[in-house]
């Protein structure tokens, strides 16, 4: 069975955000680029399904500039079989355009499962997964917290406000992954060596017109300096007074 994992390269979560000269995007100077943390669960999910089946192929796809090949190579080192790089240098492209480009590449692979992270930790849009499902005409479960394949039906749980939905979805399907779905593996030395021989197929793509236009990227207003109310339990009465009378939140 063929599975596809869509991965995105993002700034490390420790990154301090600086705005680029265009006033609309991130200044990439000094940024460490990593695989979107939620995509690691997607790669691991696909690898576990392949290992349980004892056969199959895991194809990873990423859209972005030349730099994303490091992240693709990393997923190949984790155990994915081959990669497709949709080459495009647009900074912060809009989600629907990305979903259309991914859908075009995925359609011809005819996968049984398409995996993504629940969102990307840079733009936090959480759009591409469910958009892909509509474009591909496949059922979809977003924000999966658990996944079990029984024949051609996946049993998936997702967190909702105050509870969990238990969902049954027939394959082929699109799954977006939450933290906690599994424990992503680290690439082994053997995996890293093997990844060097695996193929990354490059395809130049045109994203077409944007559906959303970037107007500005700004830093949030700094919080006004607070105050240390005091030390230890003795400070509690003053804290309670301030919360009640000044901040009016209790």
């Amino acid at each position: 069975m063929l599975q596809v994992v869509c991965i995105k390269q993002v700034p490390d979560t420790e990154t301090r955000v600086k705005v680029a000269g265009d006033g609309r995007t991130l200044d990439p100077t000094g940024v460490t680029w990593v695989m979107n943390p939620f995509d690691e669960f997607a790669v691991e999910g696909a690898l576990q399904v392949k290992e349980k089946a004892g056969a199959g192929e895991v194809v990873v796809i990423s859209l972005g500039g030349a730099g994303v090949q490091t992240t693709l190579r990393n997923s190949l080192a984790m155990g994915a079989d081959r990669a497709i790089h949709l080459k495009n240098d647009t900074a912060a492209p809009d989600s629907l355009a990305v979903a259309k480009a991914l859908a075009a590449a995925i359609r011809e692979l005819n996968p049984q499962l398409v995996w993504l992270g629940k969102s990307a930790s840079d733009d936090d849009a959480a759009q591409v997964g469910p958009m892909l499902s509509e474009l591909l005409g496949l059922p979809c479960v977003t924000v999966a917290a658990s996944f079990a394949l029984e024949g051609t039906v996946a049993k998936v749980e997702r967190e909702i406000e105050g509870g969990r939905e238990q969902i049954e979805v027939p394959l082929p399907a699109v799954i977006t992954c939450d933290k906690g779905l599994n424990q992503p593996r680290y690439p082994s030395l053997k995996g890293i060596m093997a990844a060097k021989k695996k193929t990354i197929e490059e395809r130049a793509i045109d994203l077409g017109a944007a559906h959303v236009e970037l107007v500005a990227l700004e830093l949030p207003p700094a919080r006004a300096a607070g105050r240390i109310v005091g030390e230890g339990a003795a400070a509690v009465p003053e804290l309670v007074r301030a919360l009640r009378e000044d901040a009016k939140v209790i």
Partner: protein
Amino acid sequence: MSILVFVEQRDGRVRSVSREALGQATALAAAFGGPVVGVCCAAADPGLAALGEAGAEQVLFAQHEAFASYDGAGYAAAVAAAIAAVKPKVVLFAGSSMGRDLAPRVAAKVDAGLATDCTALVVDGGKLVATRPVYAGKALQKVSFPGALALVTLRPKAFAAPEAQPGKSAAVSALAFTWDASAPRAKVAAVVGASGGKVDLTEAEAIVAGGRGMKGPEHFAMLEELAGVLGASVGASRAVVDAGWRGHGDQVGQTGKTVSPKLYVAVGISGAIQHLAGMSSSRCIVAINKDPEAPIFKVADYGIVGDLFEVVPALTAAIKQLH
């Protein structure tokens, strides 16, 4: 031009996040000069006429027996039909677990731009500009929509629910839509712990969160007690979740949830940048930490330096006395 609002219901009740959306729709409708129209997917009418009190002039009711629980594909078909019927300028969804799943499907169906998790909307020269936190709140992105239609999801708690207009009622009509429920689809088999369960962090009025300073999972009972008297939900730092002390759903921060409660009490949390990103849009932040140099004090409105095992029980007792 009208503003369409997806009205979210669960277990036959309209959720409060949809009232926040109706309130914001009323403000946009004033700017664009059109009515506020709701669209609701359900198996039975959850009392939609009463949404007039929250500002809806009209509500389209998409009824299907499969809509007793959420169905992404079916709901998307219905909302797309509502868009075709109403031709709105803007469609608003709550940025809830349902809205986050549904809005991108609808955007793909109707080929329109979508801005998710927005915290502010302004109309500037006839153009809608949406503000949305990115990098988990380390920056704010402002976006506009080149097309005729804009889709937006609103971060829960970022917009106030409108003042009720007692006695006003919305005109409810059936929405015609086509959807093949026999096609392969994801079906909700069961919902566990949904009613009477805790309030989700993203929708909580107050949050008490614990970090590594809690020293072990057993001490979270102390935070549960403080949360109990505050009417708060309990959250946790990444270190705590990664250590297995709390479930993943409790994590606040860049790889967890981004929250904006009225009151956020950080207990034994040093304030790593990825945690601060997820909670610094809270209205009022309280930090309790033994290290006076902890970065959390830089974003806190009020701080107490001290042993949390003494401060938290004292705080719980003091708040109990208020009631």
